[in-house]
């Protein structure tokens, strides 16, 4: 009896490991959008919230009624672990971590795809015909309306540094930024800043001197700026802040005029793809989102648009390619984090 139960349990375990062979990576949420008519499945693993992606998936299904969409949300590092280490079976990988997406493609985990739609992308929005950018989301300054009601909002980092120096008492504990040790996006923005801006380390030192609180995510920073707990937050994901503007009062968005890193949200087809035609149709759908203003508004994801970048020369899209692999190097990362900790964490 006991042995029989044990065997049954063993069987169940075996069955489960067959059914969910890659359950080791951490899933935040899983959503299923049933097909309107038909039995195809498109399995997407993504870092984007369901709020942002639901309208896109619905619109895609309107064009592809036979496809059910399985939408799995995980953090960028978990997405990486799922595809890179565990070979999880997904048809599409959508991530804001450009560096990790590049590494997936570089190390041979992505398949190439070309179509008339992907050909419309600018050169900087596509790498090896494997990584396709479909949004451009700047890193912005989110400032408290109450706090800056009387003084002018700094327009560039020099003004920002001068302001922090001059009014250091005011800003004690009231400047927020990403904890780059835990946030992949924060790390991406920080490393790009360190590469492009002379004063990045000075700014970091200053923020450390002000005992600035560190955040995991854009949403928390926006909440604290809106409530007046923070005077401003540095390097917040602009698209996210913009999507919060209608419902959250008390803050506004500043794009710094000297230099603004622009993150590109990218999509790729992993080698474990099963429903390739549906995945390709989704890529075509995503890269032409510029032509669907309704979806842009509903998702809050600004599409790739070269004209918008030409209009503001301070906007620099982070370049896809092997350069992004540099900051993923173990030694380089350790060294960067050590420097960062030394600058910002002051006991």
């Amino acid at each position, binding site marked *: 009896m006991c042995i029989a139960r044990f065997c049954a349990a063993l069987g169940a375990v075996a069955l489960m490991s067959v059914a969910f062979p890659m359950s080791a990576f951490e899933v935040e949420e899983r959503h299923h959008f049933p097909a309107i008519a038909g039995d195809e499945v498109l399995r997407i693993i993504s870092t984007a919230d369901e709020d942002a992606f639901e309208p896109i998936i619905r619109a895609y299904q309107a064009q592809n009624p036979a496809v059910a969409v399985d939408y799995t949300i995980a953090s960028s590092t978990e997405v990486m672990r799922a595809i890179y280490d565990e070979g999880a079976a997904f048809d599409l990988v959508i991530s804001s971590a450009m560096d990790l997406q590049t590494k997936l493609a570089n190390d041979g985990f992505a398949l190439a795809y070309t179509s008339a739609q992907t050909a419309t992308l600018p050169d900087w929005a596509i790498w090896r015909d494997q990584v396709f950018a479909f949004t451009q989301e700047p890193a912005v300054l989110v400032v408290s309306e109450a706090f800056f009601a009387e003084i002018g909002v700094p327009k560039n980092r020099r003004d920002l540094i001068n302001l922090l120096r001059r009014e250091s008492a005011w800003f004690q504990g009231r400047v927020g930024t990403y904890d780059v040790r835990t946030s992949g996006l924060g790390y991406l923005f920080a490393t790009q800043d360190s590469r492009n801006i002379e004063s990045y380390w000075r700014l970091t030192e200053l923020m450390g001197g002000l005992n600035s609180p560190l955040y995991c995510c854009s949403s928390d920073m926006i909440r604290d700026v809106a409530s007046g707990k923070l005077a401003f937050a540095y390097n917040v994901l602009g698209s996210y802040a913009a999507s919060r503007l209608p419902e959250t009062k008390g803050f506004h968005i500043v794009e710094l005029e000297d230099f603004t890193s622009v993150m590109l949200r990218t999509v790729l087809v992993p080698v474990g793809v099963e429903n390739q035609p549906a995945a390709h149709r989704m890529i075509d759908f995503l890269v032409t989102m510029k032509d669907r203003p309704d979806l842009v508004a509903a998702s809050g994801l600004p599409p790739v648009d070269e004209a918008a970048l030409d209009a503001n020369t301070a906007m620099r899209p982070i370049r896809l390619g*092997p350069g992004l692999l540099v900051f993923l190097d173990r*030694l380089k990362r350790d060294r960067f984090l050590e420097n960062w900790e030394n600058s910002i964490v002051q006991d």
Partner: protein
Amino acid sequence: MKGLIAKGSIRRRLVLQLGAVAAILSIAFFLVVQVVADRAAQDTQDNIIAAAATAIADALYADRDRVMLELPYSAFSMLGSISQDRVFYRVVERGQTLTGYDDLPIADSGVSKNTRRFASFTYRGEMVRAVTVVRSVSLRDERRAVTVTVAQTQRGRAVISSRITATATAIAAVFFMVATGLSFWAAQAALRPINRVARSVARRGPNDLRPVVGETPTELVPLVGALNSFIARLRVSLLRSEEFIADAAHRVRTPLATVRAQAELTHRRLNKPEHKKAIREMIRAIDESSRSAGQLLDHAMVTFRTDSLEKTPVDLVGLLAETCDRLAPTADLKDIDILRDFPEGPFEIQGDPVLIQSALRNILDNAIKYSPDDSQITVRAFEDDGFWLQVRDQGRGFGDADLGKLSQRFSRGANVADIVGSGLGLTIADEVVGAHFGRLVISKNKKGTGACVSLVFAQP
């Protein structure tokens, strides 16, 4: 041209051979460019990955008792700026991977400081080009050799290479087409002297036995030389036979005259009509023989004189009138009227009067010979795109004979078997007008029967 088989064309052979050479050169050019292009693209990639590896090696440093590395951003961004190729790297110190891809093969055997080693191999499913450099790092009192390997896939190289190959293909194609066109031209130019010699030989008249002179390409000198010696032999042989004929005719004519004189004397002395008739027959036969001998002599003279034509001003009408005068007694014997229809002025050309008179005499003599007794011969001179000297009789004409063949030597009309003749008269006339660049026109008499022969000379 019977027996001469035209087989193969020098021109076609030249064009084909030159075309084949052009094709071989084009293909050789294409292959060489492809190899060079591939090599150049490889060198370019080698230089870039070597620069990246060197940049990484330069960023190695000692931190307390460890070798550390701060990977320079530029090392990889420069690899990414050239092409969208995958990049792999590995840094190894004492067999331990310091950072990078653990499974990237490193070929560090034989690599010492300041040298680098390139290798091509398959890594992660794609062909990569790799470079390995070694750098020593001092740790306290110890020097550690650190190996840096950078590998890159070869998509960019393939793109460069294929672009150059496309250009090379286009150039080779254009080269081939131009070379083929030029080979047509070259064949044409090479054959021009041959054509010139061939044309100058083909253009000669049937009696032109002068040697071929003028510019001759060295290669054709033996052929033309052989042809000239052949012509010379032919000429000598022809002259010899003409001389022989003239000699024979001359030797025959003189005794004939003696025989005729004796026959006439005898004729007068004889009384019996049947004897007189026999002697008359004899005299007639002697006359014909003597006439033929005269024609043979005339012909030999014509052949000789046309070889070196002497040109003096000649009045054709005057010559014609003189000939009529001379032959009038012969015509009278047969009661033939010679009607003259001459214009006022003279027809003057450059030519040999002796030859022309000989031609006219032969024609008129023919007309008299073949005309029936008591008939008329019309002799006309008129202008009609040239000077026409025409003799028309009321004789039996040429029957069904081929008019074109009548002027050939010893050729006679089919209907004259009963009249003694050599068949040389028209030949002489034809050769004379030919030597004066004129022509002989033979036609049937439009008014009834009879023959109409015209000598046509070009107006100066």
